[in-house]
């Protein structure tokens, strides 16, 4: 009996006009957008590849002393192929960071190696998840609005119940068959997208990626089920189909389109930037001032007393002391970069110069680390918290939850980008360890080239692998659990209303 019911509902849904139209619309949008997104991904990939070789070559060409490493190593973030499913922050945020021992890199130090036309930001991007989020949720509500109200109006509900079928079975049959019908366009879209992937040939998916796509599929089904149940609840509690339809559309437009935008707008407008920025900047300045004091003390007490290194040594060549300070992102560092030729008269000074760098550079590293601790806290407090508040408020809409969960699966969410930054920070540590191993700070090659340039062949290279799937799952799980909870609550409510209702 149960199977008969499911079959009947399935057929009833599949042959409808709305299903056909929604299917055609979804698939054509998916194809059009996937083609665009793949082309975009390929462009970003080429740009990434050129950037990597270009940055490495530039590094080899321009860097001949250890101190010149500061800011000369640039590492790049490869584009994420799953950004086609949910672009998230992958396309938007900076993807290239310079590394040095005087600054611990953060997201706020990134640049973009593929900086395109900045006006292109005027067009927002459409990804596959957005299409599902908008069109299929609409379809779910269209399926659901007359599921109960329509049958009641037509009188078929009463007819059905005269057989020995319990109400729960009817409800369950309707739910299962509608879900199957909603899954169909999702699966077909994903298959189409994957076919287009394999045709383009530029996208290579790893085993992990298949799991991630599976995760996105699962989340999509849960999301659509939530919308179907919202529609079913409305359908069970209204008398007329027309009313059910109106209420459904009102709820759909609010949840999917209006509420998320409204939330971001409100948070953007009313969020007061905490005053912490200024005090943190002051603290950071003090760290570097105290470093500067120590450095000057050292110079004063050493044999080359009272004389500044910059004017003292008899050299030719280049030196610079880049001093970065940006109060809005709390970026602060002071470095000393030298590439000198020592004149013979200055030779006796060399041990002092070496001692100076051996003294100053580890202290710079320490200052950089202390700066980072303050900076990290302040930036999290100011920028990350704002985004989190906005996201948490948006979570009142299942559409936003779905967006966040799929973003986490794809690894294009904030945590995914953060993972890259952490890898870069670890790489910086490797470079510093490499300096210590080579005794670079006390070496003559730190500042001069007259005893040959540094051989970079054993410099550790940067490599980045996307966050593993468990982390993505962890970040997605909260939203998925919420969506499941919504499903359960809605189903129970609908069931209770339906069971107690007069037919």
């Amino acid at each position, binding site marked *: 009996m149960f199977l008969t019911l499911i079959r009947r509902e399935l057929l009833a849904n599949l042959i409808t*006009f*709305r299903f056909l*139209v*929604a299917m055609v*619309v979804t698939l054509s*949008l998916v194809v*059009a*957008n996937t083609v*665009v*997104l793949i*082309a*975009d991904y390929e462009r970003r990939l080429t*740009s990434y590849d050129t*950037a990597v070789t*270009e940055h490495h070559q530039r590094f080899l060409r321009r860097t001949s002393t250890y101190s010149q490493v500061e800011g000369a190593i640039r590492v790049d973030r490869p584009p994420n192929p799953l950004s086609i499913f949910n672009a998230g*922050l992958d396309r*938007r*945020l*900076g993807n290239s960071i310079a590394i040095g021992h005087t600054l611990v890199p953060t997201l706020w130090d990134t*640049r*973009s*190696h*593929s*900086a*395109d*036309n*900045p*006006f292109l*930001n*005027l*067009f*927002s*991007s*459409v990804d596959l998840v957005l299409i599902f989020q*908008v069109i299929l949720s*609409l379809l779910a509500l*269209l399926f659901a609005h007359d599921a109960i109200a329509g049958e009641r109006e037509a009188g078929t509900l009463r007819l059905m119940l005269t057989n020995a079928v319990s109400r729960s079975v009817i409800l369950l049959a309707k739910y299962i068959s509608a879900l199957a019908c909603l899954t169909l366009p999702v699966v077909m879209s994903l298959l189409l997208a994957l076919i287009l992937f394999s045709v383009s040939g530029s996208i290579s998916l790893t085993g992990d990626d298949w799991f991630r796509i599976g995760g996105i599929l699962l989340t999509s089904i849960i999301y659509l089920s939530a919308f179907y149940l919202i529609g079913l609840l409305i359908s069970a509690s209204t008398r007329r*189909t*027309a*009313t059910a*339809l*109106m209420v459904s*559309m*009102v709820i759909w*437009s609010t949840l999917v*389109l*209006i509420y*998320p*935008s*409204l939330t*971001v*707008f*409100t*948070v953007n*407008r009313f969020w007061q930037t905490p005053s912490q920025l200024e005090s943190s900047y002051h603290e950071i300045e003090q760290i570097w001032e105290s470093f500067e004091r120590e450095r000057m003390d050292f110079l004063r007490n050493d044999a080359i007393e009272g004389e500044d290194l910059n004017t003292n040594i008899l050299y030719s060549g280049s030196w610079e002391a880049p001093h970065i300070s940006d109060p809005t992102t709390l970026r602060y560092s002071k470095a000393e970069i030298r590439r000198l030729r020592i004149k013979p008269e200055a030779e006796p000074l060399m041990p002092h110069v070496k001692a100076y760098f051996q003294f100053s550079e580890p202290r710079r590293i320490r200052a950089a680390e202390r700066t980072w601790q303050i900076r990290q806290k302040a930036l999290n407090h100011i920028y990350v918290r*704002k*985004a989190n508040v*906005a996201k948490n408020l948006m979570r009142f809409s299942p559409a936003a939850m779905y*967006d966040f969960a799929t973003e986490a699966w794809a690894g294009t969410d*904030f945590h995914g980008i953060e993972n890259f930054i952490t890898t870069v920070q670890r790489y910086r540590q490797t470079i510093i360890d490499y300096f210590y191993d080579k005794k670079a700070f006390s070496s003559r090659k730190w500042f001069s080239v007259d005893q040959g340039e540094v051989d970079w062949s054993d410099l550790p290279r940067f490599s980045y692998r996307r966050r593993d799937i468990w982390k993505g799952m962890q970040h997605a799980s909260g939203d998925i659990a919420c969506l499941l909870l919504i499903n359960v609550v809605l189903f129970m409510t609908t069931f209770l209303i339906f069971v107690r209702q007069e037919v």
Partner: protein
Amino acid sequence: MIWHITKRELYDHLNSLRFAFTTVLLIALMLVNAIGYLGEYTAQSTEYQKKISASLDKMRSNADNLYNLFREGPGTLYKKPSALSFCVNGGEAFIPESAEGVRSSFGISSDDGLSIEGIWQMAYPQSNPNLWNIMPDYTNTDWGDIISIVLSLVAVLFTFDAISSERERGTLRLTLSNSISRGTVLVSKFLAALVTISILFLIAALINLFLLYTSGSVLLGPSEWGRLGVIVLIAFIYLSIFITLGLLISSRVSNSSTSLTILLLIWTVWVVLLPSTLGALTSGLQPTMTSDEFGAHRQEMHNNLDAQYDFRRYTDNIPSRQIPATEGTLFWSKYVTEYAKREEKLSEEHLNAQIAQIQLARSITRISPASSVRYAIESMAGTGFTRHVQFLGHVRRYGNEFRTFLIETDRADPESPHAIGPEEGTSQKPVRFESIPKFEDRVSFSGAYNAAVTDILLLLLFFAVLFASAYLAFVRVEV
């Protein structure tokens, strides 16, 4: 008779659930918008004035020597904030708010006393503030979005059953059995929906304006009121498009629920998804240089310049203050002028390519009236991309004016060798600050109107086509 039916329809609408929903939604959105923009314009104008006066102070301090003006240029030129920015935020975050007349990157000095610096050139800053933006990606709540998304949805919700439900109930046949033409029925249904939604929109908009106006957040002069009036008019045209679309589908489809399904799918694709999809699709047609490619291109330009004017041969030929100018002075003058000209040309070409890419994408996104209406409102409100292009036009004109002024002032000085570029070849007389042309950015009603007129015509065309088809469909349909 037409008023009779319209009145009947109006009463019908006033009693409906959707009327209540629309009222709540529109008023809530407009309130949020007003509260969000409270004090925004005042803050923007103060900031703008501060920046302008800083820029002018710098110019004044440079005015004590004409050569300084040649070297430093007019300074940063700022775009004037629009009082109507609450109407539509045209991606202001991605559009630079200034252009720069700045020092050249060229400079050379040698131990023999040669010291040459380049002359000023116009530069167009390209910032990508989105690089660090971790906020979720959603649209604004401004008039533009309220009109383009909410108002069109409301129009669809009001009209999807206008004809189909009457046919279902049989009242349509009853109405037509009187001596009423079908055209009259259609027009009165159209008018009823238009009047209902327009009144709701006007009430919400007036609440919004009242809040902003009484709090002193915006100063609305006659020009602003005029532009607001046109914006409201544009909203009505746009609204009419979707009302007629609703009537068209509703008269062709027998069943209200099918009618709504089709309408909603058309609406989602046309209004929500198509503008972005087409934007992404067409911007790939005409890709511009990336920043790295531009850097390489610029390097090549410098190499070419060096090949043409080998300035290393002239490093001993130090310019001097002799009249007539010596060979060295003339060479450096020519070199520095050419350098500035080519740099400026290069950055201008890059900018023009970028603008052309966006213009093309924008003209294709106009397939969706949601894009057209946004662009029209942007133009009228004086925000967004069109406004930026206008601003760049002003900047260019001013740049030429400033340059001509400098050259003429130099020519008027008998003690100058008239070899502009090196310090020795240029007049060093102080310049009267008041006589220097100042940059003034303005948003004019006629300029705004000219920019918006294509979009308005396009919207009218959409409306005309849809209305004609709705009429034909309704006349030929069996009741």
